[in-house]
């Protein structure tokens, strides 16, 4: 397995309930080790296994939840 990190910048988040929505969904995704939503900077920080899931898939998941991704940074 190969560990990777990705940070996604979203549009300004307003309702704190969005945090749970995004975090639980991502954490349920196979291959995701951790997902953390930074409410105030409107970012999602993720750690995942690159063999199982791609950063672009995570971005797609976040979009499907209804949060457009403005930019992403993969380390």
């Amino acid at each position, binding site marked *: 397995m190969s560990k990777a990190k990705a940070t996604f910048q979203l549009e300004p988040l*307003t*309702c704190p309930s969005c945090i749970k*929505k995004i975090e639980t969904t991502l954490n349920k995704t196979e291959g995701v080790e951790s997902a953390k939503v930074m*409410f*105030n*900077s409107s970012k999602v920080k993720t750690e995942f296994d690159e063999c199982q899931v791609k950063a672009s898939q995570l971005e797609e998941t976040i979009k*499907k*939840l*209804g949060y457009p991704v403005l930019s992403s940074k993969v380390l």
Partner: protein
Amino acid sequence: MIERIHRYKNHLTLLSGFIIAAAFIAKVFKIAEWSNGLLVVATIIAVIPIAIKAWQAIRMRVFSIELLVTMAVIGAVFIHEYTESAVVTFLFLFGDYLEVRTLQKTRSSLKELVDMAPQEATLLREDGTRQTISIDDVQKGHRLVVLPGGKIPVDGVIVQGHASINEAAITGESLPINKANNDHVYSGSILDTGYLEIIAEKVGDDTTFAKIIELVEEAQESKSKAERFLDRFSSYYTPTIALLSVLVYIMTRDLHLAITFLVIACPGALVIGAPVSNVAGIGNGAKNGVLIKGGDIMENFAKVDTLVFDKTGTLTKGKPEVTDLHTFTFMPADKIFGLVAKAESISEHHLGQTIVKEAERKRMDLNSYTISEGEAIKGHGITATVDGYSIVAGNRKLMDAERIEIHSDAAEYAVDREKAGNTAIFIAIDDQLVAIISVADQIRDDTKVALEDMRANGIKRMVMLTGDNRHTAEAVANQLGIDEFHAELLPNEKVEYVKKLKEQGAIVAMAGDGINDAPAIATADIGIAMGEGGTDVSMETADVVLMADKLSQYAHAYSLSKATIRNMHQNITIALAVVVILILGVLAGQLHLASGMFIHEGSVLVVILNAMRLIGFKTKASQKHKKQHHKVRESYVS
């Protein structure tokens, strides 16, 4: 399609608002069918974006507030309450719009910082040509050029040129400072006038600037005790109210009452009230060069009643300066100083170097003197021959050893100077004591005002711990009105002292430089480090970092923490009161869908607006400080 609706959400909100207005006009003219029709259209337009969000969440099997609102609206349409359904959807969207706008304001401090991040750099190639490259392509060791108005792209060291630099992005201090060869510069600062060539030392996420931003982001995310409590509260509150609404429907068959419960189930102000205060407070700190590393720290900091200070480098500048030259002879003072400075140029001791620096500052030409022999005597001073004069400069022991008599006038004078916080250096020329040079590590200009400010804000006890000698410590403590001091301490003794204070029940903040005092800083309830432009150690160990090394920043941080906690308590009170009013109102039958939603959205805005007051928060001391700066600037101009 869905993305499009999302993008035009604000337009939909506006449209539904207009249609509702038209419907009310129709009602005034008693055209009921028109009025109802318009309200239904308004409801449908506004509920679409809400329902989409609800659906997206359901698809991922997550519960959402949008779902509750959608259900409530469907229920309202079902019982023909068109006014209510239209107004509720409109208020929900409009409230959301206002929240985005106002929340951006509370987050603006951090955004302003992020926007200061440099995007590109000018690379100086070996053949002398310049090339503009992206900031991501800059590597360690690259030689970069910075021109007036340009941003310093990375952390580095100056190898060519000099400039006046504005380091506000790092230190919060907007007065430009001068830097030249071998000085360090920081990414994010702006070159005011001059020209620089620098060698990149830290790039990308390793720069001080990048670290500050990351730290502030993390800090704004980290929750205080109050926030965690509220989070728990609301995680029970929402399902409970939702369940209650079902129970109410089953028991009373009153759909109207049941859906009203759904609308008040999201305690928006409760969830957002505490975090916005924190974000605005931490943001204010960051803008003023104070990094407060989280909500917990903010909470504890506000409770601090005892301050412990290290002396050197914290209360004082940490840079000794020549404060006086007193002569006992007819020889001109300048000549004596020149001879001594030349003699001291062989010394590696910091007192000797202080004298040399002072000579340089006075623009004395030390090259015009010739030194024929010289010896540094460790712990005592130096002896040297300059321009044929035999020079002895050092402490009492050196004078004794060289058999130079210290007459009573000189001895008295020396003790006086020491009691005033100086180190006295005896100067003899050709075996005669001719002068005493006083060197002192001066108290920072803003220290006294800052300490008074903090005492006025609730500090009960101030303690100074220092490794320095008793005389000097006493002088500094007296001058600043510090309650007690302990001198000649080792770092571990400082730790013991902080522990003792804590055992006595004091809530202790310890301020010191990040390296020597790190253990004591870590032991205190709140550790404060002077950032020195952000050394890694201090940024990691301390709870609060003062980036510009100013005590006025400390005073600012302290009253800011109090103001932030006060603000947070106000927000929590408002939010809890609103919850009680909503529940009582619904139970008493006085509150309906639209009014419930109105109070709910209104309270969210009230707490955000309240938190926004923190963005511009200033202490009295910092205002005074700013004014002084202003005056200095004016005098430069005139």
